């Protein structure tokens, strides 16, 4: 006869962390695969096309009418490559965040997202300045990218509304992305089964916050993350005073 095993809360915490780590690795692989696909689809073909245009140009007399046409086509490919490079760069590291702060970075990213996907967009931002830790700003921006990526992949939407707002008397920030797309049955949908939703929930949990999803078939969808705000670290006063 054996005694029933006592479940140790540390075991379940270890199991939870293991599952999170395994998921993070899986997501990392997926992201690498996505980058490889973009490089293949967008760069490989466009660079090949550009190489062909340049080869055609090198075989035509300068100033001939067909040469002007070839130059225009080559410039078009170059412009498209530049846009793609900027987008991939921004996906990899939100440079705008360092320079302009979260509010303008969200605005720039949403504008570009709307343009690329021919979607109507609206963005509501708080008037107050945000005093965020870098880790919070980066995570909120990443979650915003994730939400929009979900809209792009699943929603078939015409319109996207994004809102960043203070909540809980300014103690928390709430980021919402809502669309008017096909929606899904939120009651029967397991958020853990979707990489995007799971990633959102994990990022929010990492910051001590939470993620919520609301939708119904044909009714659009809404994704919301709420993260608590911690006051930015301040230096002790005496270290900033001159003697």
């Amino acid at each position, binding site marked *: 006869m054996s005694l029933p095993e006592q479940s140790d809360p540390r075991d379940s915490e270890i199991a939870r962390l293991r599952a999170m780590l395994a998921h993070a690795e899986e997501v990392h692989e997926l992201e690498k695969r996505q980058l490889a696909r973009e*490089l*293949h689809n967008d760069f*490989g*073909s466009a660079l*090949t096309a550009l*190489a062909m245009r340049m*080869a*055609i140009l090198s*075989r035509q007399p300068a100033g001939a009418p067909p040469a002007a046409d070839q130059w225009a086509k080559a410039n078009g490919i170059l412009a498209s490559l530049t846009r793609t490079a900027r987008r991939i760069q921004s996906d990899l590291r939100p440079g705008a965040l360092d320079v302009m702060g979260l509010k303008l970075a969200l605005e720039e990213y949403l504008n570009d997202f709307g343009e690329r996907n021919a979607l109507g967009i609206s963005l509501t931002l708080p008037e107050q300045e945000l005093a965020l830790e870098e880790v919070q700003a980066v995570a909120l921006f990443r979650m915003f990218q994730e939400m929009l990526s979900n809209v792009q992949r699943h929603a078939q939407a015409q319109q996207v509304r994004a809102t960043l707002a203070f909540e809980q008397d300014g103690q928390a920030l709430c980021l919402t992305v809502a669309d008017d797309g096909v929606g899904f049955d939120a009651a029967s949908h397991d958020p853990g089964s979707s990489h995007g939703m799971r990633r959102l929930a994990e990022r929010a949990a990492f910051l001590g916050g939470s993620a919520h999803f609301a939708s119904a078939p044909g009714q659009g969808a809404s994704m919301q993350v709420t993260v608590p705000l911690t006051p930015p670290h301040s230096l002790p006063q005496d270290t900033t005073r001159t003697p």
Partner: protein
Amino acid sequence: MAELLTLCGHYVRTAGDGPMALEAAAQFAPQLVLSDIGLPGMDGYQLAPELRRLAGSRRMVLAAVTGYGQPADRERALTAGFDHHLIKPLEAEILLRFIDAQAGLT
């Protein structure tokens, strides 16, 4: 690519997907086919054996031009019936030298 090859004196036909390529091949009887792998609907791996079947005993060089550059991708292309596996981005001079090097096409 088609414009460059035309400029270099080759007769070229283009097709946007697998079924169109088969239709063009049936009329045009190409000596050489350059085909992407990632095609809409019917991919390059499915297209290659169909093109071979269509050509029967006629000599035809089949080359995949693709961004899938891993050794396993090359192996899969050769197994599907491609003679060559060219990787994008592809330089124009390399493409032209490749085409000139194919027997019977110079």
